[in-house]
């Protein structure tokens, strides 16, 4: 086998690995991309109800209540302009609190209530998810110090 042939084999191997990877990436993207929306976006865009999305904003003060099964929590997420009701079954993360930023992942039910299957936890009480900060800036309610 000549040097040229060998190089050709390696090039082909590299090329086919890249092709396979590209196919995998594109097909996986289709089902794994989750878009982020603020409550205003959700109401304005009349989103399809079966697609999983992320919703972010502040947990409205006094809105958190627990259902009688002891596991389901309902609360309202707001960007200070629109409000979406969210329901979640499970244990809430430690830093979930009224008045704090939150990101939930799930889908919008036909009744307009957002069914969350995940409430994203944070590690730090001063951390604000960038999307939430942006959503608040857009609705003109941002009071943070970071520009």
């Amino acid at each position, binding site marked *: 086998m000549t040097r040229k042939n060998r190089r050709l084999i390696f090039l082909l191997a590299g090329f086919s690995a890249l092709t396979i990877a590209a196919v995998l990436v594109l097909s996986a993207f289709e089902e794994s991309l*989750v878009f982020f929306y603020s409550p205003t976006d959700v109401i304005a865009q009349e989103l399809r109800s079966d697609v999983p999305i992320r919703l972010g904003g502040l947990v409205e003060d006094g809105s958190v209540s627990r259902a009688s099964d002891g596991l389901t929590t309902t609360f309202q997420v707001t960007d200070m302009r629109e409000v979406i009701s969210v329901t979640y079954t499970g244990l809430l993360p430690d830093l979930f609190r009224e008045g704090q930023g939150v990101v939930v992942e799930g889908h919008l039910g036909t009744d307009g209530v957002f069914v969350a299957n995940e409430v994203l936890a944070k590690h730090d009480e001063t951390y604000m998810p960038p999307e939430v900060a942006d959503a608040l800036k857009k609705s003109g309610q941002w009071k943070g110090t970071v520009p």
Partner: protein
Amino acid sequence: MEGNGSLIGEIGLYALILALVFSLVQGTLPMVGTHYGVGAWIAVARPAALGQFIFITLAFSMLMLGYIVSDFSIENVALNSHTDKPMLYKISGVWGNHEGSLILWIFILALFGLSVALFGSNLPPTLRARVLAVQGLISFGFLLFTITTSNPFTLLNPPPLQGLGLNPLLQDPGLAFHPPFLYLGYVGFSMAFSFAIAALIEGRVEPAWARWVRPWTLAAWCSLTVGIALGSWWAYYELGWGGWWFWDPVENASFMPWLAGTALLHSAIVVEKRDALKSWTVLLAILTFSLSLLGAFLVRSGVLTSVHAFATDPQRGVFILALLVIVIGGSLVLYAWRAPALKSGGYFSPLSREGGLILNNLLLITACATVLIGTLYPLFLDVITGGESKVSVGPPYFTNTFIPIMLPLVVAVAIGPMLSWKRADLYGALSRLRLALAVALLVVIIGWYTIENGSFLSLCGLSLAAWLFVGALVDLGERLKIGRVGLGAVWRRVIAQPRATYGMTAAHMGLALTIFGIVASTSWETERLQVMRPGQTADIAGYALLFVGVKDVGGPNYNSVRATFEVSREGAYIATLQPEVRTFTDPPMQTTEAAIRPTITADLYAVVGDPDGQGGWATRIYHKPFVHWIWFGAAVMAGGGLISLSDKRLRVGAPGRRKFNRRRAKVTAA
């Protein structure tokens, strides 16, 4: 106290500035000196590295002293510490924040520089000077960044009487040692990078170069493996979600350099043994360190939403981004310009040990690229749509791309070491692996009939782990000629075998154990979520968990609600699990402490949540088979790396290539 306090801070800052000066000298004079052949300037490299190390150590000690004596006149200490905090967390609090973690990063960088200065006497003097210069320039960038945007010694006047405390999630032994290991890994790859840049400037890569690069890479790789495993273990027991890997940007940031570093580790072998793949190895060294820097950028800039994210400052992100562009852009331009000068020798057929290692590199880098795309895509979309489209890439993306690419790699890992250099006999290698193949098939068949809820894919996963595990043992057996020569001869071969062989066997077996743990724990995990009142029992995987009740208990710097479960199996008492919800006052924060009963075969994992207001408590219980094997496997991998590192041939200042080749020849002849 106050008088002393500001002194600690002032000494620290002066030390940092002096270190900056030393790093600038170390980064420039030797570089110019080697170009124009000015001996005196070349000679500056070593004392400058020593000086830089001394002053960084001084700054680091001052910051640590500030934490130990709770000197709240230093803003960093006041923001992150508290007099009530246990001593271990006062010390680990030093790197539990942005500024302090940078000092740790620079300290490790200087430590590596110092070891080249001290132990590099067998390196060509110009190569050593250039390596030190590149290390100096990296240090300079980070020191400048620290002093201008993230000074840990900013003083408060008047100092507050008490500090704000450390984030309670970080007050944990697992996480106390997670950053130092991770940084030893990240920064350790800077050595490979500096050697790569120096080699590009020299226009030469020799086997001696690889003999230097490999131990550094290996040491960095071991630390990174331990660091990643510690982080994942911490997430498992501390966050209370029962998960151990979330494909989160912060996790990916450490995983990408690990993948590239693993590739580098393997390609450096080819440079060392066969004098081939030179320019590829140099490129890998650049990429690995670039990914480490990218990791630092992603974690520190807060541009991506991460479940592990801490509060961040975007201004710092811009500085790191600029540093990133200069380092990565500059080194790639240098590579494009100089790499064609690196002539590779060593002809080999695609079907050979070299070919196998190329396949390893190809798959690792492809996998790394898919992780990179998934991690950066949200950022990319955000930028091109001007912030209109915010998106996150979920774990399904990573499992659907990463795993299919890893499967052929794992199959190949067992075969590769059986191939000979230059030109190999694939059929012969496979026929010697027939035992591994038989075990792998047996696992599928037995699993199919005995495991009730096993999907075909999970059986394949188990079978793959068995293939790799037995394959690694078969390879070792072949090298020792077990069953083909007498016991005495085997024993002589056991002793004569280079340690790197045992290291490789251990690392590959560790990978098999980790794969086994991942497959078993994700395929056969069970979860129960319910409200329980005292006296009620929850059943999971044959265990009965009796909820005894909840009690208030106090800790050193928190108050805790502690639930008690009594675990029994078929009526016999086994253990007591006591998960807690801790409420800290400084800073005010709640943490969930899971109670875990780990055994070799499975973990029972219990978490207590909020009361339902009617005497019941939300509880969550998991049964996770073989989950600890994930971290045990990682420890075995890192252990394999350490064994390899102790190999005489890899020892810094190893004898020349010819010498040990002769010894190898003797071994083979025996």
